[in-house]
């Protein structure tokens, strides 16, 4: 039925298309593109449309400008080049009507990016529109500027935007605040121009304005030391009040998400508090109580509440918090870690990494759960957990932790093996004072996932063996056994071949055996056979005469 409809539509479209028509409607073009069964068909439709649009542009066709811009944006979204349409954006923006400006500005932000020189030509229109009497047009200009301006445009138009921060219309004010963020990111020097307005705007009641202004303040702090100090002095009490009011607020349907009033505002304020309180005891003290309130009061059965708690914990750990507050934070972490929701556990692992700097012991307590996460079904969680495990390793727990990881290496997914191998090698290298243990772990890893072991890692192994005469016999025997058991991992083969070549006589004669070893019987020809087999398997990498090598090995053993 669907295809019959399409056939009818196509026929109708073909009939309506004639050299003198203005072309298809937007929706017809979209239908034609969707109906294309092959890439070539689609290209044909797009080509036809682009040709019509180009013609309309060069004819300066006013009637279908709006529609053509929409088509261009759709075509652009599919990935086709649309440079020829960029000037049309400018013309639409320069037109006097709201509908033209609306689609023109949208086209600008979609078809261009800040690196294009054409963008500079819009500066004048933008300036005019920022001063327009119609607040919606001002809004369009602010939005476009905020999304796409270059550093030059930022400098040029900053005064207009600054002025608009003082306007009465909250919709304009919030857009001006966000636009200011981009300006300050592009030109950090301008930060000081905005700090006064930003601080005073914190007294606003409109939530849209508040979340934008709080975000602007955060940005100003990052851009300028002076702004940071200024805001520390002038905004902390205001922020505490905002957070307290919204946290204590009764049901407000307009802002309610899962029983919490405006979680976004909560989160933004918490983030600004973190920026202000970082390294500043005074500020941190001021926000202590409200942080405790948010940490204890916020419901954690829905994502919105958890998002707030997450931010709250981050803030507690980022500022000079009291120990009571830190305990609260770690408790929340513990709860998150044992939550069944994957998102929450992922976030908990993130938080724990930050908590390491604050209270290592508390994090160590969760070691077992974290190890479980290394084996989780979700690769995102596995990766986070592995990073965390690496940070948790110390002299006391390194051996059991490594054992767990190596055991898991055997069964883990191939795409995780590489990360896991790298981490184990890192850990083992760091704690390699116990040389025997280091060797054992490396031999195991080489056997399991030697192909993922980086060159400098097994080079270091060889160097260690060379410099540890008491362990050379053990090494060559262990490697020989590993080679016999499974010679599929190239790095293992390389190391083993080197070792056997180097210490062949120790292998054959069971020289310098350690207490833990059982004697093995390996004859010269066994050793040479093993080498030959290995070399044959990897003959493409090992140029040279195998027989020569085996002769040499025999000679070496015989000496």
């Amino acid at each position: 039925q669907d295809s019959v409809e399409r056939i009818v539509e196509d026929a109708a479209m073909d009939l309506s298309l004639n050299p003198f028509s203005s072309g298809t409607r937007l929706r017809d073009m979209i239908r034609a593109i969707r109906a294309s069964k092959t890439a070539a068909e689609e290209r044909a439709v797009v080509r036809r449309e682009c040709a019509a649009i180009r013609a309309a542009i060069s004819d300066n066709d006013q009637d279908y400008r709006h529609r053509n811009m929409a088509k261009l944006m759709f075509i652009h979204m599919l990935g086709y080049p649309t440079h020829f349409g960029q000037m049309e954006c400018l013309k639409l923006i320069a037109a006097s009507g709201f509908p033209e400006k609306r689609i023109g500005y949208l086209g600008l932000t979609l078809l261009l990016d800040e690196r294009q020189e054409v963008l500079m030509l819009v500066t004048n229109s933008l300036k005019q529109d920022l001063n327009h009497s119609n607040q919606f047009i001002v809004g369009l200009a602010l939005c476009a500027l905020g999304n796409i301006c270059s550093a030059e445009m930022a400098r040029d138009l900053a005064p207009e935007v600054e002025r608009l921060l003082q306007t009465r219309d909250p919709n304009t004010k919030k857009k001006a605040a966000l636009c200011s963020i981009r300006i300050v990111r592009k030109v950090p020097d301008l930060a000081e121009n905005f700090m006064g307005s930003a601080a005073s705007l914190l007294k606003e009641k409109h939530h849209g304005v508040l979340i934008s202004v709080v975000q602007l303040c955060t940005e100003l702090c990052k851009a300028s030391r002076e702004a940071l100090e200024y805001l520390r002095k002038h905004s902390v009490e205001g922020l505490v009040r905002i957070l307290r009011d919204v946290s204590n607020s009764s049901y407000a349907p307009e802002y309610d998400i899962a029983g919490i009033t405006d979680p976004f505002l909560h989160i933004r304020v918490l983030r600004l508090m973190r920026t202000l309180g970082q390294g500043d005891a005074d500020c941190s003290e001021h926000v202590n109580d409200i942080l405790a309130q948010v940490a204890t009061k916020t419901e954690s059965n829905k994502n919105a509440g958890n998002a707030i708690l997450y931010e709250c914990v981050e803030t507690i750990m980022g500022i000079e918090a009291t120990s009571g507050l830190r305990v609260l934070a770690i408790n929340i972490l513990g709860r998150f870690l044992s939550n069944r929701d994957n998102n929450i556990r992922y976030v908990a692992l993130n938080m724990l990494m930050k908590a390491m700097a604050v209270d290592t012991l508390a994090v160590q307590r969760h070691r077992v759960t974290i190890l479980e996460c290394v084996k989780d079904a979700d690769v995102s969680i596995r990766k986070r957990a592995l990073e965390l495990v690496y940070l948790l390793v110390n002299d006391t727990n390194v051996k059991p932790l490594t054992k767990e990881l190596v055991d898991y290496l055997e069964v883990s997914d191939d795409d995780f093996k590489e990360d896991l191998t790298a981490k184990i090698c890192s850990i083992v290298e760091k704690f390699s004072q116990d040389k025997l243990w280091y060797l054992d772990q490396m031999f195991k890893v080489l056997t399991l996932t030697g192909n993922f072991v980086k060159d400098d890692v097994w080079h270091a192994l060889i160097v260690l063996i060379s410099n540890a005469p008491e362990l050379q016999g053990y090494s060559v025997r262990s490697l020989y056994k590993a080679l016999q058991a499974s010679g599929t991992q190239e790095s293992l083969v390389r190391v083993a071949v080197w070792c056997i070549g180097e210490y062949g006589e120790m292998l054959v004669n069971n020289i310098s055996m350690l207490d833990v070893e059982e004697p093995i019987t390996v004859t010269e020809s066994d050793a040479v056979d093993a080498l030959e087999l290995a070399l044959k398997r990897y003959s493409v990498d090992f140029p040279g005469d195998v027989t020569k090598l085996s002769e040499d090995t025999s000679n070496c053993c015989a000496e």
Partner: protein
Amino acid sequence: HPTRSRPPSTDADPRRWHSRLSAILPSLATGCHPVRPRRQIRAATPTRPRSSSRASADLRGRRPSLAMINFVLLISRQGKVRLTKWYSPYTQKERTKVIRELSGLILTRGPKLCNFVEWRGYKVVYRRYASLYFCMCIDADDNELEVLEIIHHFVEILDRYFGSVCELDLIFNFHKAYYVLDEILISGELQESSKKNVARLIAAQDSLVEAAKE
């Protein structure tokens, strides 16, 4: 075991052996001299709590991002792009590459896994609504749970605007979806937490357009 006297340990022997071995196994020869002191492999330094300055981070060679949300991507189950908005500079070529990579990463994730993927040092928060994946790319130290709420905020507003929004609405009225997005995010930051306000603003602008047609 057969006893054999250990070979006389002269310096000549190991060197001769080594040079022959090196000739045959050139890859072993590199950086493998036994007399050289053990190379320290620098362990990765543990991550300290990240400073709030996003601008300084250079994540795997990428330029520092300019916004909380670097880009928004809506893709269908078949990997077709329904909406893209870029708040950080990406060339056309880079955009195509990004879309291809992320589609591959996200569309293959099972339904029970968490809503976050790590990609090129960034995080991408995504959620599936019917046949569409809504994705937002953020920095590694941004609040993923909040971005999930932002995505939901966007979806609910779209739903209200189109009246039970479906993928076809977003295809045939994509420009309107962009207008809605522009009332929610500017420069990758949240602009308005009240769904009612967003709806009101869009409606007012739509009326202006209607009025101009007469």
